[in-house]
């Protein structure tokens, strides 16, 4: 009798253990509720919630999104209910599930990062923090935190000092050398690194000669950016030893496997959720199928098996 053993799917991100390497990307999965009617949230590797700030944020005026070839631009403006309302109104729902919840946080000053991190660290049901450093530092002439290794490192340390939760730092791709930033945040204590956030882009309405987005520029996501994300993950995995989470344009299990093979310990699924609410489940199943067909017993055995 032939027995097929389901491949082992658990992966470790430092202290954080995940059922499988497939997580949702921040800002693309709400606080989990929107997709609970489509998929079993328990089956996810982790849920990364929408970016949280100290105070609620209204977000940008519409239009906020625009389709582009193979992708989309968004300038939602980090609309969110604020960290307190999140804990009160959204966490109880998420606690009903046996899934790792990662709070994506951001601030406009070091102090905001610090406070948000502190508040979330004592909230029951938050398993890790993901620090979004793709936002402008208002005290520093608006330079993006994540575009300077020193500033990126300081944000990382600021958050680390406030929490005992694992800290994932999420990098922006709008930089000359992403590996330098990765090294800096690793040195500053990041437990894991996720990349990439969106690339800054723009779209123009020919009829009105105005930008399609009220905010003028927005973040480009979707399969259009996958080649750039893969390249950046490759640059980073060669230079850091903390676990790396691959993000950018992942639509299928094949896409996810490409990131794992390169050396990412896990992946995040963003824009794909919009187009197919079952995307995460299909990707998990697809990875399992690939492992089974290729007689690989443990997903960890394919991580980093890229042969350049």
């Amino acid at each position, binding site marked *: 009798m032939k027995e097929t053993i389901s491949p082992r799917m658990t992966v470790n991100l430092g202290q954080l253990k995940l059922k499988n390497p497939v997580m949702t990307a921040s800002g693309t999965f709400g606080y989990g509720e929107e*997709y609970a009617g489509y998929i079993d949230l328990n089956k996810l590797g982790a849920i990364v919630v929408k970016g949280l700030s100290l105070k609620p944020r209204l*977000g940008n005026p*519409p239009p906020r999104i625009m389709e582009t070839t193979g992708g989309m631009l968004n300038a939602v403006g980090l609309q969110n209910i604020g960290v307190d309302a999140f804990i009160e109104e959204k966490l109880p729902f998420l606690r009903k599930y046996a899934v790792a919840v990662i709070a994506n946080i951001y601030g406009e000053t070091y102090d905001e990062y610090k406070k948000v991190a502190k508040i979330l660290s004592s909230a029951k049901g938050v398993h890790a923090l993901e620090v979004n450093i793709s936002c402008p530092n208002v005290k520093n002439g608006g330079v993006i935190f994540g575009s300077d290794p020193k500033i990126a490192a300081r944000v990382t340390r600021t958050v680390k000092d406030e929490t005992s939760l694992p800290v994932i730092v999420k990098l922006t791709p709008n930089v000359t050398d992403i590996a330098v930033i990765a090294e800096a945040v690793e040195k500053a204590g990041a437990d894991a690194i996720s990349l990439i956030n969106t690339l800054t882009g723009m779209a123009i309405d020919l009829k009105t000669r105005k930008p399609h987005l009220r905010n003028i520029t927005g973040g480009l996501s979707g399969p259009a950016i996958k080649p750039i994300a893969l390249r950046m993950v490759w640059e980073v995995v060669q230079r850091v030893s903390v676990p790396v989470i691959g993000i950018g344009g992942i639509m299928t299990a094949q896409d996810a496997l490409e990131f794992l093979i390169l050396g990412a310990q896990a992946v995040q699924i963003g824009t794909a959720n919009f187009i197919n609410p079952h995307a995460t489940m299909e990707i998990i199943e697809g990875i399992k199928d690939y492992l089974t067909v290729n007689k690989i017993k443990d997903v960890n055995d394919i991580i980093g098996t890229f042969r350049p």
Partner: protein
Amino acid sequence: MAGKIYIGEISKNEEIQEDCFLMKVKVAASFENPLPGQFVMIRIAGLNDPFLSRPISIYSFSCGENFCLIELLYRVVGKGTQIMAGLIEGSQVEIHGPLGNGFEISDVRENIVFIAGGIGIAPLSLLVENLHRRFPSSLMTLYSGAQRASSVVGLDRPQKICHDVNVCTDDGSMGEKNLVTQVFQKDMKKFSPANTSIYACGPREMLISLAKILSKSKFSCQVSLEERMACGTGACAGCAVAIKYEQGISCYKRVCADGPVFNLADIIWEY
């Protein structure tokens, strides 16, 4: 409230008016019976161009034992609808729905008024049919405006039901030469604010002028809004509309998940 995703097969897709297409899509019989005002997100099955699904109101719906038939009435305005228009019979599309909240249907009133601008007739047509199961034709008045005779579309069904049908065009090539909101305004005194339900759908400018017309009245008016969408399920926060909030402050609601039907009076048009 979550929709489901179906692979649909196009059984018909024809231009019934200038730039205006009627698409019939066969989906599995499990497709949930939609409420008037609900919509689907549609895209070509398996392709990434166009990348995002497009929101289209359910214009008509019927269900047999083996499959359901969804009818979509749409105008070609850009790339996505252009590509939709090019799909031939037998082509497969992904249909995600039904999505959003339908029109709220209040109890019997003296009058039910429908105000449609152009392709805005699409969700109202289903609403008319639906309301007709409960209310007599005699209560129903339809105002429908279009740019010109060649763009008047989707009246077949509602005009069979509504006892009073007022068609107008911008250039007078059909019906009165006037804006639909103005035709309605002239009639306004015929209706009693407390006992009339107004349902409207149409271009932004039409809804803004309707809002002005109604602003000093006590009429309640539900409108179906349009905004660019990515997810259709409330997850991306992309389809924002500014809404007046209880304590005088405003916030952004999601057209897909909090709408697409809103009370006209709650909408903030300038921000």
